[in-house]
């Protein structure tokens, strides 16, 4: 087996992952720093028989992929903060109707137009809570191109398995930097295909009736089963209802199908945790700087470790808690004012031992930035 080796941007790693996962339909609207995904797929998708469409805006982009998912295709869109804000209503629709789709947000400096060409990790909380109304969501991230590729595949797998939108939160630094990517051979990474109903023509198909294993088989639009899809609260046939029992049942289902699977959905990497005295928690581009620091300090005998999160939502609180037990301090490294920080604080036993190493000026957080904070929390001053 020889894997194809490429030297690409993170955004290209993402689109390669999507193609590997079986992406068949992409709708998008250009925005820095995600445009390379859109551009790349305009070129690549038709070559594999897929469809690409540049829509009039981000709102229609997410709507179009939801429509295309219903006809039985694997779908994706990509954007950045301003566009992601515009997609929230559509994202909530996908949550409510349980339609598999992947939304990539390549984060840039926010809020507002902010810093279009600089990095940041400011959309983490928006990914969780940007949609109105109670809901749960899955959001993944990655810090290297190989991981971007794999997490993109994972995003599709999770979307199909749980009939849910999955957000892939990349950042400008990862999206734009170039490094090596090895494309796995077909079959190397497991792919989850859409689960289609086995109910035959003429027999009642229930689009919202879970099987015993909790999965909801789908039926493609255009197939033999005609049903309804609505963003209103609905019954197991997909028709609107405001019956309190059904409303309660549906919101619990939407919540629990994600929140009860926190550990199943958790993707993370551990570095030197076993004997670590202090532990960093980081993700995305920040995790590269954090790991740099960890490796460097290990050389000097300092017992530092890193927990790199690849699943941000649902937040793997138990895992974080477990890994942080007994550590002298926990340093959350991220490029925002402290978003995952609060989740870590909620998760651990001693929130006062959790510190933030961040940078919010549009520049990539550097190892020296982290050293400085480390010194400070060790009481060593600047």
């Amino acid at each position, binding site marked *: 087996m020889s894997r194809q080796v490429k*030297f690409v941007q993170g955004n290209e790693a993402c689109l390669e992952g999507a193609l590997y996962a079986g992406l068949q339909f992409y709708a998008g609207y250009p925005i820095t720093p995600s445009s390379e995904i859109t551009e790349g797929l305009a070129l690549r998708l038709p070559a594999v028989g897929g469809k690409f469409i540049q829509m009039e805006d981000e709102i229609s982009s997410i709507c179009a992929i939801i429509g295309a998912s219903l006809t039985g295709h694997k779908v994706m869109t990509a954007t950045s903060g301003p566009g992601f804000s515009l997609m929230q209503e559509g994202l909530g629709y996908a949550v409510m109707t349980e339609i598999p789709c992947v939304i990539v947000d390549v984060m840039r400096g926010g809020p507002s137009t902010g810093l279009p060409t600089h990095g940041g990790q400011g959309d983490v909380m928006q990914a969780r809570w940007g949609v109105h109304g109670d809901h749960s969501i899955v959001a993944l991230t990655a810090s290297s191109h190989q991981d971007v590729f794999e997490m993109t595949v994972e995003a599709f797998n999770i979307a199909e398995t749980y009939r849910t939108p999955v957000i892939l939160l990349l950042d400008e630094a990862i999206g734009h*930097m170039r*490094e090596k990517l090895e494309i796995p051979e077909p079959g190397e990474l497991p792919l989850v295909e859409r689960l289609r109903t086995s109910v035959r023509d003429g027999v009642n198909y229930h689009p919202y009736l879970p099987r015993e294993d909790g999965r909801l088989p789908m039926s493609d639009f255009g197939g033999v089963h005609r049903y309804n899809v609505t963003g209103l609260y609905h019954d197991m046939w997909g028709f609107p209802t405001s019956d309190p029992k059904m409303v309660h049942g549906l919101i619990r289902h939407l919540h629990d199908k994600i929140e009860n699977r926190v550990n199943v959905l958790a993707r993370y990497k551990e570095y030197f945790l076993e004997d670590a005295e202090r532990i960093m928690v980081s993700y995305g581009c920040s995790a590269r700087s954090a790991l740099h620091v960890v490796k460097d300090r290990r050389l000097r005998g300092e017992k530092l470790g890193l927990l790199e999160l690849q699943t941000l939502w649902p937040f793997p609180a138990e895992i974080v808690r477990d890994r942080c037990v007994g550590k002298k301090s926990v340093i959350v490294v991220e490029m925002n004012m402290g978003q995952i920080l609060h989740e870590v604080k909620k998760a651990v036993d001693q929130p006062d031992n959790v510190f933030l190493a961040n940078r919010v000026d549009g520049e990539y957080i550097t190892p020296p930035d982290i050293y400085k904070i480390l010194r400070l929390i060790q009481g060593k001053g600047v």
Partner: protein
Amino acid sequence: MERHNLVFTGSGGQGVITAAVILAETAVLHEGLVAVQSQTYGAAARGGSTRADVIIAKSEILFPKVLQPNLLVSLTQEAYSLNYPILRPGGILISDPKFVNTEKKVDAIAIQLPMYQGVMDEIGKPIVYNVCMLGAVARIIGIVKPESIMKVLETRIPRGFLEMNQKALELGYDMAAPYENFMN
């Protein structure tokens, strides 16, 4: 040297980013090395000053930006003034007398190569200027072979233009002969 920290700077149209990408890609695909490349985007992309970072190493590269380059290429005066201060003490500065007046700085090796002049004289097409520069850089850092660079160029450039590029590459490579492996 364990790790080559390079920064290429210039103005929008000079192709410094492309050069950086080609160099890093060559290192990864044809020299078995590890490399990352990143760049500064922004209004800069539209005329102003551009910067591309390349790190080449034998092992994993985590933090992908160059804080203190060992080698800095500056192809405009503005790029030079902006970036010269970050050059690592003892580092190498490559520039072109056509565009840059270098000041003296203690503890830095300033290499002035008349690349523009050379390209215009020998090839007559300013479009291959960046490839010429790449040839010079390749010679100086010594870990990337010109043949390997050509392999990458073959995948990116229409057949008809390859020869011209090869010439430019060799021109730069030759020009920098006195500084061969200066950085190793």
